[in-house]
């Protein structure tokens, strides 16, 4: 099996699994209970959260643990809308469904949402953002930091500087970032940021929301006073312990891992070229403002669904950016927003790499693609 879908999910390490199993054995009590066992669980929970917060250079209490990044994103966007229903929420045309569909919900409630377009490499048009801020009362700007389909990294410093005079908070969907980049939220200057543990080798079912002190949003989940009354629900201690370990491991291994990923990405693109496969890398070139781990590649006049189906039959696993809407399969809204040429957009696949693949794996993948394309089976 060749797994090239690390942007979709990453596996936890053995140590993470063991720590989680140990936590489930050692801390069976409810962390909110005021007895010895509950207090021990709460203490361990706070220690794990402190560990996570320190990686992001923020305080423990500025992090809210959620059930997913999607929940964290919903919390920020809906929470802002419920607080400021008459103001506009600004986002981009290249967001993950978590933002896109939450904004669609806001529109259904009668709220105003404006999507800022991008250039052909997927970078936000800052001039359009400025004009939007000049002409609308904006409550929040939500931007995907590193795009999940193309790996494009936005110029957050420029966005931040643009927002400052308007006093508008910035939410960053940072789901794809922590595995590949240092995430210092003070340095980045995010007011809100969303994360997902299983994207950095942590467990599924854990999201994190950073909320800068001073910004007020409505809670979405009401009940007990967990997470300082910002998100009710019994704390998932084992998963938070697993998240802390995964995050620390990802930081420690980052330099070596990213070196391999960069080399492998170059190797793979070179192989496609050497095999004379007509393709284009959607988004900026390698080592530009992008994650080298996510390669969105369009194959000319090919059908990506069929290509991925046949690659799957050969145990090569990857993703396409399409989504189902009612009864039709639509091409990726991200690639459409970037204006990827018609003859490449339907043949676009996302290869998301890790340090685990060998060059032989990538060569095999490139050769298999060549064989499938030459067979005519995948022609659009």
């Amino acid at each position, binding site marked *: 099996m060749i797994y090239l879908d690390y942007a979709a999910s990453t596996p936890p390490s053995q140590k993470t699994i063991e720590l989680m199993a140990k936590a489930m054995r050692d801390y069976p009590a409810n962390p909110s209970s005021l007895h010895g066992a509950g207090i021990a669980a709460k203490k361990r929970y706070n220690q794990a959260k402190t560990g996570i917060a320190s990686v992001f250079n923020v305080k423990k209490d500025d992090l809210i643990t959620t059930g997913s990044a999607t929940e964290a994103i919903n919390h920020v966007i809906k929470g802002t809308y419920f607080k400021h229903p008459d103001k506009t929420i600004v986002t981009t045309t290249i967001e993950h469904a978590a933002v896109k569909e939450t904004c669609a919900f806001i529109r259904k409630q009668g709220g105003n949402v404006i999507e800022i377009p991008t250039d052909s490499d997927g970078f936000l048009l800052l001039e359009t953002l400025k004009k939007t801020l000049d002409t609308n009362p904006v409550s929040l700007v939500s931007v995907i930091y590193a795009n999940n389909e193309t790996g494009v990294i936005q110029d957050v410093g420029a966005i931040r500087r643009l927002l400052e005079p308007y006093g508008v908070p910035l939410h960053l969907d940072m789901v794809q970032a922590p595995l590949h980049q240092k995430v210092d939220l003070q340095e980045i200057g995010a007011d809100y940021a969303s994360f997902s543990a299983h994207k950095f080798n942590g467990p599924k079912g854990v999201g994190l929301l950073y909320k800068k002190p001073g910004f007020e949003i409505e809670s979405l989940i009401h009940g007990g006073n967990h997470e300082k009354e910002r998100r009710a629900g019994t704390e998932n201690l084992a998963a938070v312990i697993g998240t802390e370990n995964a995050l620390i491991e990802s930081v420690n291994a980052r330099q070596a891992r990213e070196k391999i990923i960069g080399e492998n990405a170059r190797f793979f693109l070179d192989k496609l070229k050497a095999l004379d496969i007509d393709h284009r890398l959607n988004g900026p070139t390698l080592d530009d403002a992008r994650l080298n781990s996510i390669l969105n590649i369009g194959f000319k006049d090919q059908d990506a*669904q069929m290509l991925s189906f046949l690659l799957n039959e050969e145990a090569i696993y990857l993703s396409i950016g399409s989504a189902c809407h009612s009864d039709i399969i639509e091409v990726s809204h991200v690639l459409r927003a970037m204006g990827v040429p018609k003859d490449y957009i339907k043949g676009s696949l996302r290869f998301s790499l890790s340090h685990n693949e060998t060059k032989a794996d990538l060569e095999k993948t490139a050769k298999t693609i060549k064989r499938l394309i030459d067979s005519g089976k995948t022609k659009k």
Partner: protein
Amino acid sequence: MMKRKILIKDGEKTVFKGKILNIPVKDEAIRAKSLDLFDDDDPCIIHQSFVMKQFAETLESLFQENNTDKIRFKDFEDTLDFLDIEATEDTTIEIS
């Protein structure tokens, strides 16, 4: 696979003519395959499409394995049970 065409005939009567991915497949076969693959009897369009490709591949491989462009339905009745056609002794399937 995309460009392959299928012609299903019952004697001289054309039962289906079109792309292999559009072959008539029984709803219950789609549900059963979806249950088998995804444990989901109400698949979304992406999963339905994946299931259809599996059926198309099953059909295409029959021609390849038998090194022919034309087969008699009755000879592969069990394998082709997913097809939504009223087959007779004279039903043939051609690929081009």
